[in-house]
């Protein structure tokens, strides 16, 4: 099978606005989780999250006009995608080509995006109209164009980042927008790699983005019992739920030949990915870690390596008892006592749903390139059922340059990714 390499990476979240800054935050044992500022949540049972500080949409986009056509989540996605694309040197390469060569280059450059969508926030835009027109849908229809932004639908499209990144960077190849909640970002990388392996593209930009910190989402998650009262403590005896985060992450993946032709710096080799579901309901997770085990096994098979080759593991580690313990079960089943250093990142930058799988991969790769496995600073005592996990509060060295990243989501979905860091 064709070798696939990664030549660009980008990320933004509460813990930093680029991959290296985020790793630094983690290595220093710092969390970016703090009181919610999006609204006054002082009286809420769960009042913390990891927000991107000093958010300035126009600045992040570098285009104030575009701000009218996109939402906060999209801004993060376009920003992170731009970082990765710049690092990979795609704009300069495109600019150096004549018209025909540029057209071919665009046709051979694809884009896969994992998007959160945003179920409730888009509806809030209708609240002024609904307040004005009350129970009368007739009046709602009559007043519609006077009270709602005519661009509302376009601003609300879940595939906005795919649209605007492709226009901005002239990407015209194979594409997709995956809206599979938490596994969206990781699936966008897996689909990107397949598009390259199958010869449908030479370069692909994978992006994931989400911004779920808003009142209705938080209220629901609290009702379901998934939100912590104070901090996200993966695998800890005191784990009591997850904390929301936001942001975006991106990789530029390409064929080895495409990267070599441009003289691009290779950050990593994509080794493989896997996906498996449990099919037991929207919030149900099997306690034996069955789906996650199968996703890891599928990724190892896809990569053609064995569990013993893995040098570090970035877990999903979302701090809920159900997920943590079943994740531990899966890792113990596959790695047993020969487990490489295991870590988790969400304690520092929260759970950003659709973003998270790709964000953990971008940050995990950067850490592995720096030869460091950041510790889990919130860890005090391992939870019952998580004993045997090779975790630490302190930074350690990876056992090899191969990093395994795990991701799990609602509907019993599980995904795993294997990358080989190149220094």
């Amino acid at each position, binding site marked *: 099978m064709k070798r696939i390499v990664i030549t660009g990476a980008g990320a933004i979240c509460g813990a930093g606005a680029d991959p290296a800054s985020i790793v630094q935050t983690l290595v220093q044992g710092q969390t970016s989780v703090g009181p919610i500022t999006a609204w006054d949540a002082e009286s809420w049972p769960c009042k913390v999250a990891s927000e991107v500080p000093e958010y300035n949409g126009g600045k992040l986009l570098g285009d104030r006009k575009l701000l009218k056509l996109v939402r906060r989540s999209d801004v993060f996605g376009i920003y992170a995608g731009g970082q990765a694309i710049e690092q990979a040197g795609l704009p300069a390469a495109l600019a150096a080509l004549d018209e025909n060569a540029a057209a071919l280059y665009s046709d051979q450059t694809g884009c896969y995006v994992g998007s959160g969508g945003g179920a409730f926030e888009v*509806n809030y835009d209708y*609240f002024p*109209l609904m307040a004005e027109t009350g129970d009368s849908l007739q009046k709602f229809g009559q007043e*519609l164009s006077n009270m709602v932004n005519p661009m509302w639908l376009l601003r609300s499209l879940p595939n906005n980042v795919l649209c605007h990144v*492709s226009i901005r960077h002239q990407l015209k190849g194979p594409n997709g927008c995956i*809206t599979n909640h938490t596994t969206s970002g990781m699936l966008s990388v897996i689909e990107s790699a397949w598009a390259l392996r199958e010869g449908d593209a030479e370069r692909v930009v994978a992006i994931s983005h989400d911004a779920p910190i808003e009142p209705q989402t938080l*209220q629901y998650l609290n009702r379901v019992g998934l939100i912590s009262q104070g901090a996200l403590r993966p695998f800890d005896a005191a784990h009591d739920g997850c904390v929301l985060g936001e942001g975006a992450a991106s990789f530029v993946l390409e064929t080895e030949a495409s990267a070599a032709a441009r003289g691009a710096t290779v950050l990593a080799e994509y080794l493989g990915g896997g996906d498996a*579901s449990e099919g037991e309901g929207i919030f149900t997770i099997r306690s034996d870690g069955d789906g996650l085990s199968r996703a890891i096994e599928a990724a190892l098979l896809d990569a053609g390596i064995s569990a013993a080759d893995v040098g570090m593991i970035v877990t999903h580690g979302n701090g809920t008892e159900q997920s943590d313990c079943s994740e531990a079960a899966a890792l113990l089943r596959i790695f047993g006592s020969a487990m490489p250093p295991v870590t988790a990142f969400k304690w520092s930058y929260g759970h950003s749903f659709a973003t998270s799988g790709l964000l953990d991969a971008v940050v995990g790769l950067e850490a592995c390139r720096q030869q460091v496995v950041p510790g889990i600073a919130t860890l005090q005592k391992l939870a019952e059922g998580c004993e045997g996990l090779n975790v630490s509060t302190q930074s350690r060295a990876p056992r090899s340059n191969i990093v395994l990243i795990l991701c799990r989501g609602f509907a019993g979905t599980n995904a795993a990714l294997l990358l080989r860091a190149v220094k």
Partner: protein
Amino acid sequence: MSARRRVAITGIGLVTPAGLDAASTWARIKAAKSCAGPITIFDASGFSTRIAAEVKGFDSLPPIDDRKLLKYASRAHRFALAAADQAIADAGIRPTLQDATRWGCVVGAGMMTVAHPEIAAVQQAAAPEGELIPNNIMDEPVANDVMAFSRSLSTAGVSLLLRRFGIRGYASTVHTACASGGQAVGTAMRLIRRGLADRVLTGGFDSMISPVGLSGFCLLSAVSSDNDHPERASRPFDLTRNGFVLGEGAGFLVLEEWESAVKRGATIYAELAGDGNSLSSYRITDSHPSGDGPIQAMRRAIADAGATTSEIDYLNAHGTSTPMNDRSECAAVNAVFGERAKEVGVSSTKSVMGHLIAAAGAVEAGICAMAIRDGLMPPNANLQQLDPDCDVNIVRDVPREQRIGMALSNSLGFGGSNSCLAFRHPDETAALIAAGR
């Protein structure tokens, strides 16, 4: 190197404005009888567009035998469950405990996931003056209803399907607006080719016939406002076309690895032979008038199928009936086929059942499979005065009886994603396999 794994379509399930199953939908489409009418689902009397193609009589269907599951299902999810049940029954095979991990599920899901009464309840309690008062959310019943939350999630549909059929392999949900259904089916096909699954349940579902859903399209003037003549409103390729008619529904297919489908004696509608995707990278709502974007998608689908333009007999066009789409799409057809464009029958079945948005590509994939089976190109209804810019060989008014060796189906989305699927007659596939290809 061994030949690539091929993919068979062995089951079809449809819930559309044209009918509550595949057979009745196909019959209505062949009759070229438009399903558009006044909106009855809600009071649309104040909207600039008051017509749509609704799924009628759905509530009279016996509900699926899983009452608990239905609590987690919205209107679009119920369409999906019904269509998927039909597809699985049609294929005559379902996941077992032994092979569940070799089954995948890929769906194209609509973007509007919250029912209007729920939006209204939250607004009345938490935004009485229009501005959201976050603290009021905490005590509002809908915002505390876990079932409502479940239905709103982007993975709600795939979750219901995984659970209903006990599917435990690769699962994904995609949304590229009007290209969603096509991209979902294309992704599903690839899972089988890649060896990641042997069978995949795939499709799309959507219902945007709601106050907020319709509003989005009214604000963009994308929907036809021919309120006095709903049955004429969707008229793809007609010079006087003025927008699409919003539809709703679901389409599901069972895809199987070819050899295993043959081995178990399955009835194969067609080979799903090629998947082509591209980005227009032009504007959010349009592709370039030259057809740039759709051109690449069609060429890629044909190449992916290992075919040439000379083998294509029929194109199920995206054909939304908006001025820009139809012109750009026809330019693409002419660019791809050149002189041969005259010999390719083209129709938009949206002329009958409207635009099913995220479900459209999946439903139209089912239509293409039935067209190949029956050797019959479905007609394009409502074409009176052909737009000279839409100079393609349109199957007008009545079905065209003609053996279809290969068919294409286009789905072109807001946001610039273009999907084209290629289908091959099962006899042609068998001949290729016999020839060692």
